[in-house]
């Protein structure tokens, strides 16, 4: 969500501390101690220049390098792209699998969506479809759903929040602004059926079944009535949580339902994905290459194929002879456990199961260096600022040096 209202100060022990408006994710990121290990070749410390030369040699000699992970910001991706182009490589983000649940829908039928500020001020109904927003976007409810102020009324109407799914944490939905909070318990892979049924009911179809997607028909009819009564409803989904075969069809059902509601009223979707810079990196790839991620430059031209150039598939199938793994944000973006030779450009907090051929620790945008990131709704991008003195090089500088040494 790229929250820019955090107060961050010195921790008193040389590091940083999130003083205000923190969440689990921001605290673990900003409060990580600064460590500055040496670059390595085959596990042995070397000067940065040697590591760069070795990386350049590996890339030069690779027949099909894959640039994966891609946890980076705009300028980092701006450096990945020309290197991938010149080396005939493939670009793909570690979380593209989630993103493609959305992109497949986007590329076959489209969307009708809203952005964070719009939802925060305008929505009177939120439906949270299938995911624990809490875990991936810890401040979503506080900032977008439970806010007291709305631009459009001094005392804004109470909001209804409906959770559609199983085992979802409602605890963050609280405060004066919140009216009803309901949970409709269903399996995530039943959401599509429920939404499709609402779409059919809205068109006047009659559904004789007593249960729809595990819910009593009356509950589905009630949900539809609430949608129809909303002055501005927002249905939120998490592509990462809709993790079952053909989940894109669920996302498509959501969007087609929303599009049809808009023939007579206003309603919008809001997808919450975008962790580890994936929204940012996809945006840069799209404007520079003309295609979203999963592009190969092996032919010298941009070749787009979301199935073929899925990095995790290529690694598993041994279709690549070199993985360049970039992970500058969280320590969770560890490289895959593979015997494909690897160059790792990562935050020093990564856990490396295997020794990479070349390892270059890099700084984190917004902590060790300035940067820019595109927010989850793909609308707003925000500047990130350097907060501490560190000797860790930036991804873009390392990548540019590698490119220069190719």
């Amino acid at each position: 969500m790229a929250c820019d209202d955090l107060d961050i100060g010195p921790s008193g022990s040389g590091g940083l501390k999130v003083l205000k408006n923190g969440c689990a994710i921001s605290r673990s990121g900003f409060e990580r101690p600064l460590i500055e290990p040496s670059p390595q070749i085959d596990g042995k410390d070397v000067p940065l220049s040697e590591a760069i030369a070795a990386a350049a040699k590996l890339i030069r000699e690779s027949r099909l390098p894959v640039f994966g992970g891609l946890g980076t910001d705009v300028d980092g991706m701006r450096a990945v792209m020309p290197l991938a182009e010149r080396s005939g490589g493939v670009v793909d983000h570690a979380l593209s699998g989630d993103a493609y649940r959305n992109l497949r829908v986007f590329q076959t039928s489209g969307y009708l969506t809203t952005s964070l500020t719009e939802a925060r001020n305008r929505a009177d109904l939120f439906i949270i479809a299938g995911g624990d927003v809490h875990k991936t976007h810890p401040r979503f409810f506080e900032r977008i759903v439970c806010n007291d102020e709305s631009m459009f009324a001094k005392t804004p109407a109470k909001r209804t929040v409906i959770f559609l799914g199983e085992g979802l944490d409602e605890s963050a939905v609280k405060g004066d602004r919140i009216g009803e909070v309901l949970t409709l318990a269903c399996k995530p892979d039943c959401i599509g059926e429920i939404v499709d049924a609402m779409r059919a009911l809205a068109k006047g179809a009659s559904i004789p079944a007593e249960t729809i997607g595990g819910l009593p028909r009356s509950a589905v009819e009630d949900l539809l009535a609430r949608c129809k009564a909303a002055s501005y409803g927002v249905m939120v989904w998490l592509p990462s949580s809709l993790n079952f075969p053909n989940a894109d069809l669920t996302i498509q059902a959501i969007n087609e339902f929303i599009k049809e509601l808009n023939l007579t009223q206003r309603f919008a979707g809001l997808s919450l994905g975008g962790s580890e810079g994936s929204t940012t990196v996809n945006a840069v790839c799209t404007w520079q290459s003309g295609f979203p991620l999963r592009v190969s430059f092996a032919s010298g031209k941009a070749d787009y194929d979301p199935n073929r150039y899925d990095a995790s598939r290529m690694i598993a199938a041994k279709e690549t002879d070199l993985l360049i793994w970039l992970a500058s944000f969280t320590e969770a973006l560890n490289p895959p456990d593979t015997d494909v030779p690897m160059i790792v450009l990562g935050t020093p907090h990564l856990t490396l199961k295997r020794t990479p051929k070349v390892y270059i620790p890099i700084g984190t945008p917004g902590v060790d260096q300035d940067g820019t990131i595109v927010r989850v709704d793909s609308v707003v991008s925000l500047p990130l600022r350097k907060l501490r003195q560190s000797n860790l090089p930036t991804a873009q500088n390392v990548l540019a040096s590698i490119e220069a040494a190719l």
Partner: protein
Amino acid sequence: MLIKLTGGKVYDPANGVDGEVRDIFIENGRIVSPSPDAKIAHEYPLHGRVIMAGGIDPHTHIGGGKVNIARTLLPEDHIGHEMAATDITRPATGRAIPSTLDAGYRYAEMGYTAAFEPAMLASNARQTHMEMGDTPIVDKGGFVMLGSDDFFLRQLAGKTDFSAIKDYIAWTMHAAQAIAVKVVNPGGISAFKFNQRQLDLDEQHTFYGVTPRDIILTLARGLQELGVVHPVHVHGCNLGVPGGVETTLATIKAAEGLPVHLTHIQFHSYGTEGDLKFSSGAARVAEAVNANKNISVDVGQVMFGQTCTISGDAMRQFVTSRSADPKKWVVMDIECDAGCGVVPFKYRDKSFVNALQWAIGLELFLLVNDPWRLFLTTDHPNGGPFTCYPHLIRLLMDKSFRQDAMQTINQDALKYSTLASLDREYTLYEIAIMTRAGPARSLGLMDRGHLGVGACADITVYEDNPDREAMFAKPELLFKNGEVIVRNGRIVKVVNGATHVARPHYDRSIEKSLKKYFDNYQTVRMENFRLSDDEIVNNGRGSLIIQPTKARVA
């Protein structure tokens, strides 16, 4: 190093030069008048060639969130149009929604040196500038959108002091690093969020009570008093609506003599005559434009083929989505700021409606007398990709070519347009006005769009080919800042263009109310909403050219 371009026929309307054979001298990126004994370091013999300033596209959607949405939506637009890297250019993919790299390369290859993104959302300005920053060779600039943003509408509805409204307009131009201000479906993007489905010129916004007329007049007067050179850039109400011509004529009247630029008027010149209740209103619009010297326009010509429409006008694009081809589309409500709609579209020459749209655009070109107030655009990519310009220029310059083209389209459409009766053929001088001198003057680009001493040496050299399409598609030479960038239609050097901005004066106390607004309602802080110079300069990726504004009045 002094460079001499010898013996070309120079078309430089800003300086009244109409095809005279003249030598042009370049030094340090500028056009100079050297002393007679100065040593020429390099001479280009250009006898018989046509020389113009570099082309300037004043309305082309080349960057920003909605363009990236379109790229994502339509990978099929790019498949088969991938360009391999060369020694100096990077891989690029093109056609209707080109990659940023492709847009820069193709504009340069066509002899253009500047392109302006006309629909930059303030909330999306950072990404728009990042995309423009990755658009090589050409200079660029953005028009920031106002008029459906809630801060402005609250000011207007709350009858805020006019000088505070001007402060906000100017603040937004600074914050978004804009050179001009655009209004799209004035108030209508916001009204759509309240489930209003149309907002005519004098219709009230259901929540704010203001009308598009109020919004246009406030912005027109505000920008004039702020001294911003380019007048308010108006994408009017009722885009694409049969009968929209009445709104357009009323909007021209509503301007009350204030300078107003009406963009892509082709889409706003539709009448309701005939069996299909769709006819050309071009003659009436052209007459009104001719009679009102305060009005300038660009056409937004429709060209046949597959394209993708990209607009901030979420209200109208939601309606257009019924005609999406292929059947997929995206509409977004954005940040209490604006919206967008991305709808793929196929213009067919055999379709009555599309053929008439094509004819209406050409009629407007041929019926508006003053090329200084009419700019050549396809509203890229809404009417068609900018790479169609050479073809469009030939349609305007070559009557028999135009008549041949008319034979191939839906013949019923021609019955509802005056196109067949129009004999006008544009001259090279007029083309140079429409594609160079006019846009530069309108946008306030001091040293661009002309070839006088002191001008930036952005120069295009064409072969004087009677096939004007071939001529304008592939210039022999393009100089950018005095350097040869294109030779025989091929890029020989890649440079980074600059970003034009305008910075009218504002009273910083406006930030008090803005800060409160951001803190209470927005999801970014005011300080981060604002785009710094460093973000554009970005270690040499870009540079800024601050174009002068006139003194602010009150």
